């Protein structure tokens, strides 16, 4: 069974609902399916995978489902990489059909085994023809996503059809979206969130509106113009959207649910978002590429309860990622593999059908199905999961494990601090010392900030140095690039 089954079922159940685009000019599920069947024919004329280099578009959706129908792995590529890195990834993906935006076609040279199909040609080919039914034999690998590794070459994470189907079917009911629902997707097509948005939107029957290039103003305009009811954003996007809404002095009356994920969300941003959009249901969705996206959710009720609670333990949950999905198993383990009691931090492990943990050439998922996420976290007494950060980002100072996120939150709580990043730097005496880089909006001094941390946390968690900068390095999905900072501030 393949992920194209989702489109088959959607077509059977609500063929004429708009799948992609505007109400007036959109592609229905039936039309999307016909397009995918047409494109399949073209794909089957060549061996290998289907790579996609381009922005979010109908072609992305058609190419994804067409690949599935043809039984070929679909490989969306990160167009923000440099041309030579991209070229290497295309070489690794070959043999393949490469569907590429017209204005990106020059970025990769001719490569043996790569059949290049510019978007305009792809659109012509899927719009034409008499589709033939029937399932082709094929690969169990549905999607390959190159993850940005911290060292060396990007790894190709592999998601099987069974992983993705399990995730969608376990969390969504077919056609559960109301007819007036519309989802604004601005997360990139090469990110797991972009893939799962397409799959869950299709199965739910919720029209998808793409914003191929993000800006807060464009996002707000599109959300208003299309009466968008649902959206998924990464933390930096949410911050900009909320700031812009405040600036414009407006709300978004049609918006019902705003989900966020893909990186650590500063508490101050969530709180501000809830203030600026009080009628909106907020959802924090935590997951990884290797887990087919979401494995834990902080629900709208969780947000409201935590926000208005005077109980410290409950209020704290606004900074959690919520509870693991009911059909999954999740544990926090120490470095020896022992399951930790509530309150004790360790590495987050997860097991379930949607979990992959496989890459091309190797896997990190254990034989018993447990997957080490390499995220550090802890569970509270009621099962709410708190993520401290990547295991790799943990600072080890004088034998003590210190997570940067906690210190960053304290720094950000100062009125003069717009943003903060904390990381470890090699130190002969301590092993690592704690370094903070702060983006200021006022004139606060290093010593005031160090005192603030000392008061609120512990003296051993006080940054050894605080530098000031105009900005911090983030990737386009909002992940803070601590390794860049480590290099810069050696």
């Amino acid at each position: 069974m393949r992920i194209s089954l989702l489109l088959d079922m959607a077509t059977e159940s609500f063929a004429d609902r708009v799948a992609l685009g505007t109400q007036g000019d959109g592609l229905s599920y039936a039309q999307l399916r016909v397009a995918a069947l047409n494109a399949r024919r073209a794909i089957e004329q060549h061996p290998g995978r289907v790579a996609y280099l381009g922005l979010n578009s109908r072609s992305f959706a058609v190419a994804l489902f067409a690949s599935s129908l043809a039984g070929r792995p679909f490989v969306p590529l990160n167009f923000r990489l440099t041309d030579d890195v991209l070229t290497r990834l295309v070489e690794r993906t070959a043999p393949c059909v490469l569907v590429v935006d017209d204005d990106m076609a020059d970025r990769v040279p001719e490569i043996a085994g790569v059949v290049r199909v510019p978007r305009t040609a792809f659109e012509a080919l899927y719009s034409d023809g008499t589709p033939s039914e029937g399932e082709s034999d094929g690969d169990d690998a549905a999607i390959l996503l190159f993850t940005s590794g911290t060292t060396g070459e990007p790894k190709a994470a592999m998601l099987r059809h069974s992983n993705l189907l399990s995730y969608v079917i376990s969390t969504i009911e077919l056609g559960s979206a109301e007819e007036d629902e519309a989802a604004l997707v601005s997360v990139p097509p090469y990110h797991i969130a972009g893939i799962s948005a397409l799959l869950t939107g299709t199965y739910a029957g919720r029209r998808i509106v793409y914003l191929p290039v993000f800006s807060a103003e464009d996002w707000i305009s599109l959300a208003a113009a299309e009466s968008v009811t649902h959206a998924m954003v990464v933390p930096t996007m949410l911050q900009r959207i909320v700031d812009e809404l405040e600036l414009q002095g407006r709300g978004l009356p049609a918006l019902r649910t705003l989900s966020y994920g893909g990186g650590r969300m500063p508490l101050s941003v969530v709180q501000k978002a809830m203030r600026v959009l009080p009628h909106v249901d907020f959802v924090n969705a935590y997951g990884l590429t290797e887990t087919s996206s979401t494995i834990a959710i902080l629900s709208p009720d969780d947000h409201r309860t935590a926000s208005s609670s005077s109980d410290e333990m409950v209020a704290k949950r606004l900074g959690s990622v919520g509870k693991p999905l009911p059909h999954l198993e999740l544990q926090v383990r120490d470095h020896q593999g022992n399951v930790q009691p509530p309150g004790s931090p360790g590495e987050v492990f997860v097991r379930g059908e949607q979990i992959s943990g496989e890459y091309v050439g190797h896997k990190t998922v254990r034989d018993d199905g447990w997957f080490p996420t390499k995220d550090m976290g802890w569970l509270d007494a009621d099962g709410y999961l708190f993520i401290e950060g990547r295991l790799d980002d943990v600072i080890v100072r004088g034998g003590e494990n210190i997570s940067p996120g906690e210190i960053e939150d304290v720094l950000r709580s100062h009125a003069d601090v717009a943003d903060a990043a904390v990381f470890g730097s090699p130190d002969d005496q301590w092993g690592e010392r704690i370094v903070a880089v702060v983006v200021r909006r006022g004139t606060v001094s290093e010593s005031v900030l160090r005192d603030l941390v000392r008061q609120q946390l512990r003296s051993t968690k006080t940054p050894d140095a605080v530098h000031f900068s105009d900005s911090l390095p983030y990737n386009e999905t909002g992940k803070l690039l601590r390794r860049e900072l480590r290099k810069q501030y050696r």
Partner: protein
Amino acid sequence: MELKPGSRWKSLVCSTEAVVVRSPSQPVTLECGGVQMIAHTATGVPAAGAPELMKGTQVGKRYLDTDTALELLCVKSGEGTLSASGRLLPMKDAKRLPASD
């Protein structure tokens, strides 16, 4: 018949197809329209369904056998009624998680 999670079955009396979401706690015979279902990739002789067992299945709906906890997801609608060893399978109540995508 081994009803493994993820296995897909088709009806011989109609177009119904269903996927096992949760295996039964004991062996059962999965039927549609009263006739045993076959593996989705197999070929079989079409049969006539028992008239009282032709109430229909709906794509996207889940069907549950409370006796064995067998749970099926209908992936293709049809005219037959699903049953497990003669027990009719009622539709399961849909419980939704908040949208996260």
